[in-house]
């Protein structure tokens, strides 16, 4: 108790001396950077998981072409897991004479287990959420189907042998998918009505889905059970593989942002080490006295450790608060980048991680000097020249190295990445340090040419050379990354606009029914649109590769499985198309038409390892096609023309049910035409590429903003290093200032000197940042992104300006009191 009281009492008083403030500030910034990223990533990953559940309409989904045993549902119910069933089939839906091939979804009570169904009273209207399902004898067709067959809510539709009342227009359902192909017209109906339609006959193409949802832990256990009990032909999907690209993208982005925040943590650690050093120097006498008065070594150490822990917890609380606010702001700024509007609340784990990091930084960077402090002998009270015995190098630097290794590995969780990042960062810091040292020495040589205040300021920089270099590097680093990101972002969006041809297609048209193909193209041409190729689009699945089922095919890459097993968009064409270059094998000639050949995009080769001559089989609407890979194409996807990963030779797929797609360039004034088009061809989906591009650009801007905001913390961390350095030179500065004033310098001359010193420091930081940013951005744009790099004068102006202003201001704030003290009191005390 007396230990805590004593620790608290002296902590409160120590506060005035400054270095604890710097310590707290440094730790707070480290925590803020870490928790900000932590909160953000936790919320976005939770949102992605939730979204993924909605894509499945469940947490787990078992799919099969055979009816699924009730046994699974019984087991799920026993485990308090919700269940539902969907039966899917493809059939023609009639409204009188008008018909449309549609997906029929017969759903059981409980559907959807995740996400919502939106319905309306007329097609294409804004939907409202419903918790009910079509009543017996009722169907809910989607807008596209209603438009295609010219039906209205309240009318009737015939499906198979039965006729149904149209209860609602289906606006959206959670598992409707988002790819072009999955946007086929759909109707949902009550499961109980399915027998009346008589659509399920032996040999009919039906698929079944069983849906499961519940507590995460129960679902995990049930998943294990299901994997052990399901048949081979039953396919299990859960939220982790529902949207693997998004999940892994979020994970990668999260890791990148965590690494970015780690840079702030490491800089803060430098500030912590500097503050701890001064703290120890100032407390040698106190600890010696405590020992003289009877305190044991453990007692003096405990007080210091307790104080550090109090500071760590305080920093964690304040830092987490700042991190949370920063994250809230970022989420707000990133609106639109994230598909969902409702983000789940952030998890509290980052607060714990923040505290752990804080304690680790203190243990690595502040504890070794404190251990030294506790070793100061009591006899120092009589002989001030006696300090603590020298520390072992291992004890002095070992913990710091261990903590840095721990923190980096913790974020990357991979030794190769660890070495990559550590060595990269070390090389980067070394390079900057070298450049910083060169700048300081150049500035030192130029000081003969400036006035007295500047000469005094620059002389100070040269004298405390090591500290100056540390400050320039620590501070320049953050500014540099911010500048680099800004240049790359500018180059990226400028280049995009520059490289796009004027008449590039700006609209995509998907789901053009075969019977309307000619009329549709004529319609476009009559209204002055420049059209591109019209290609058929057929849905199918790859089933085997060289005789082996794709599910068990050994792909070299993780994402190969997903690319191979997903539903594919297939096409066929006579010509490869302008923006396709055959890089392997050969394109077919007229003589090859009707032969079972396919041409693959080079991405399929890269990700699945497929080669010319490989045998593939596809399942298209129940029919099996065995084909041979004839060629590999390099596709220029940014031509915005219709292109496919998998293109068949003409005469193979011609009879398969499918639709057409094309793209066209319209002048921007033709919205009227588009409205006409939508009315005349209701089943056609229209995609505005300009809008997509604008979205992509705004997403890019937002992504850059996210990264920049993380690096803003790096700038602040750099400032704490500056403050720590100023703190450690405070006594010296106070004495010098008093000396100068005693010698007749006015207060303003001394102040000008300090200002000159910090302005120079800031200018050098800014110069270093601008140089580094320009070099890095040049490399990024020309080598990595293969874009045009343009020299930007503003980078230099921004670097120099922001460096000078920020450092001069902070330095002035930190040293002001030094000058304000009357010289006499300082000289007496010194």
């Amino acid at each position, binding site marked *: 108790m*007396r230990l805590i*009281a*004593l620790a608290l*009492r*002296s902590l409160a*008083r*120590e506060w005035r*001396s400054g270095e604890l403030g710097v310590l707290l500030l440094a730790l707070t910034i480290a925590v803020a950077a870490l928790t900000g990223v932590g909160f953000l990533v936790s919320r976005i990953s939770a949102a992605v998981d939730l979204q993924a559940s909605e894509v499945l309409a469940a947490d787990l989904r078992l799919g099969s072409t055979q009816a699924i045993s009730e046994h699974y549902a019984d087991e799920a119910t026993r485990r308090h897991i919700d269940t539902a069933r969907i039966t899917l089939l493809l059939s023609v839906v009639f409204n009188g004479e008008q018909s449309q091939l549609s997906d029929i979804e017969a759903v059981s009570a409980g559907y959807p287990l995740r996400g919502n169904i939106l319905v309306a009273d007329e097609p294409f209207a804004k939907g409202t959420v419903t918790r009910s399902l079509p009543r017996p004898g009722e169907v809910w067709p989607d807008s596209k189907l209603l438009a295609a067959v010219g039906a209205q809510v309240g009318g009737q539709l015939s499906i198979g042998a039965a006729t149904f009342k149209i209860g609602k227009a289906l606006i959206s359902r959670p598992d409707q998918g988002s790819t072009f192909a999955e946007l086929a017209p759909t109707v949902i109906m009550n499961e109980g009505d399915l027998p009346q339609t008589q659509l399920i006959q032996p040999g009919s193409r039906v698929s079944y889905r069983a849906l499961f949802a519940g507590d995460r832990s129960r679902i995990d256990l049930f998943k294990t059970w299901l994997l052990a009990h399901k048949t081979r032909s039953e396919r299990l999907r859960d939220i982790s593989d529902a949207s693997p690209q998004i999940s892994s993208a979020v994970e990668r982005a999260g890791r990148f942002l965590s690494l970015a925040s780690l840079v702030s943590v490491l800089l803060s650690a430098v500030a912590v080490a500097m503050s701890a050093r001064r703290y120890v120097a100032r407390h040698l*006498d*106190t600890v010696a*006295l*405590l*020992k*003289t*008065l*009877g*305190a*044991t*070594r*453990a*007692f003096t150490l405990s007080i210091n450790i307790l104080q550090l822990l109090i500071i760590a917890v305080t920093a964690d609380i304040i830092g987490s608060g700042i991190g949370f606010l920063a994250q809230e702001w970022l989420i707000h700024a990133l609106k639109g980048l994230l598909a969902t509007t409702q983000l789940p609340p952030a998890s509290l784990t980052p607060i714990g991680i923040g505290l752990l990091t804080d304690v680790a930084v203190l243990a690595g960077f502040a504890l070794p000097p404190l251990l030294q402090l506790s070793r100061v*002998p*009591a*006899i120092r*009270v*009589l*002989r001030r020249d006696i300090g603590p015995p020298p520390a072992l190098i291992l004890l002095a630097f070992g913990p710091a190295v261990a903590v840095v290794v721990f923190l980096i590995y913790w974020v990357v969780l991979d030794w190769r990445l660890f070495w990559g990042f550590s060595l990269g960062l070390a090389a980067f810091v070394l390079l900057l340090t070298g450049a910083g040292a060169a700048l300081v020495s150049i500035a030192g040589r130029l000081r003969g040419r400036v006035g007295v205040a500047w000469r005094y300021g620059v002389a100070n920089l040269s004298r405390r050379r090591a500290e100056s270099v540390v400050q320039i590097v620590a501070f320049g680093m953050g500014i540099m990354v911010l500048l680099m990101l800004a240049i790359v972002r500018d180059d990226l969006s400028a280049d995009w606009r520059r490289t796009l041809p004027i008449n590039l297609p700006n609209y995509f048209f998907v789901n053009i029914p075969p019977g309307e193909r000619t009329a549709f193209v004529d319609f476009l041409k009559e209204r002055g649109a420049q059209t591109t190729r019209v290609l058929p689009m057929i849905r199918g699945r790859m089933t085997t590769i060289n005789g082996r089922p794709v599910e068990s095919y050994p792909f070299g890459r993780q994402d190969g499985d997903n690319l191979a097993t997903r539903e594919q968009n297939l096409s066929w064409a006579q010509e490869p198309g302008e923006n396709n270059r055959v890089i392997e094998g050969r394109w077919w000639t007229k003589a090859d038409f009707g032969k079972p050949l396919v041409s693959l995009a080079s991405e399929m080769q890269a990700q699945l390892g497929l080669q010319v001559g490989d045998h593939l089989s596809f399942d298209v609407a129940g029919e099996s096609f065995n084909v041979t890979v004839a060629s590999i194409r390099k596709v220029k996807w940014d031509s915005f023309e219709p292109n496919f990963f998998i293109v068949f030779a003409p005469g193979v797929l011609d009879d398969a049910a499918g639709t057409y797609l094309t793209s066209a360039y319209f002048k921007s004034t033709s919205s009227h035409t588009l409205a006409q088009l939508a009315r005349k061809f209701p089943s056609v989906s229209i995609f505005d590429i300009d809008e997509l591009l604008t979205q992509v650009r705004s997403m890019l801007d937002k992504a850059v903003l996210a990264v920049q905001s993380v690096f803003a913390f790096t700038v602040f961390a750099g400032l704490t290093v500056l403050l720590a350095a100023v703190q450690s030179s405070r006594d010296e500065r106070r004495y010098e200032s008093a000396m100068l004033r005693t010698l007749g310098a006015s207060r303003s001359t001394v102040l000008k000197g300090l200002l000159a010193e910090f302005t120079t420091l800031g200018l050098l930081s800014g110069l270093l940042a601008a140089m580094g940013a320009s070099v890095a951005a040049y490399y990024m744009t020309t080598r990595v992104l293969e874009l045009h790099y343009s020299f930007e004068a503003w980078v230099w102006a921004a670097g120099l300006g922001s460096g000078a202003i920020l450092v001069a201001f902070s330095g002035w704030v930190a040293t002001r009191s030094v000058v304000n003290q009357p010289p006499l009191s300082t000289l007496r005390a010194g």
Partner: protein
Amino acid sequence: MVWSDAEATAAPAMSTMDHAQAPKIRESVLKAENLTKQVSSPEGPLTIVHGVSFDIVAGESVAIVGSSGAGKSTLLALLAGLDLPTTGRVLLAGTDLTTLDEDGRARLRAQRVGFVFQSFHLIPALTALENVMLPLELAGRDQARREALEALTRVGLKERTGHYPRQLSGGEQQRVALARAFVTRPAVLFADEPTGNLDTVTGGRIGELLFELNAQSETTLVLVTHDRSLASRCERTIRMEAGRAIEEASAQTGGVRAVGDAWA
């Protein structure tokens, strides 16, 4: 100033009376046995304290005098267990300091020893009261605040308990240090040049207070000083010369003479 000359003059007279009435045979409280301290220097080993032996009994006041570098402070450090002798041993309140480790000696100091230093050595982060409470807290006493307040009242600083060291004058700081030294009622009080950093008048007053408190608490006083008048008020004087100890004056007369010198 609460401190008055009347109080100051009354103190030494009482102190001499107390000593006169004390029993003739008193037990040994601090015993040096053949103490030697050697340190290594660029010119080879250097002997700072050379075979010093003496015995100090409870309640006795002993001045250690000598020129700079004669080994006074080193001897004090050895006696207080702040440092260990190269050979020989120190018995403090019956415990051989050389058999204890650093923490063991610290614990013994917390229970039995008080200190007053030339440069006061108050902890700048703590108030006057907190500085006085510190040794009580280190010794694990319950009534730290009350005892510390009493001690500060005794040195005339009742009104300044909440002041920090930098808000106090040199003399006031040393009075806080005296309160801190006596508050634990130590068996032995070590004072290292307690008036060395003070002007003559203030130093004189601090000296008076030191002896007064010492008399009140019957503490054994070991005083290292240059100040002859201060030294002469002690019962015994040990002169250090080139690391060796020479017993100088006899007790009572010196003490009485010192009082006369100071207030003549």
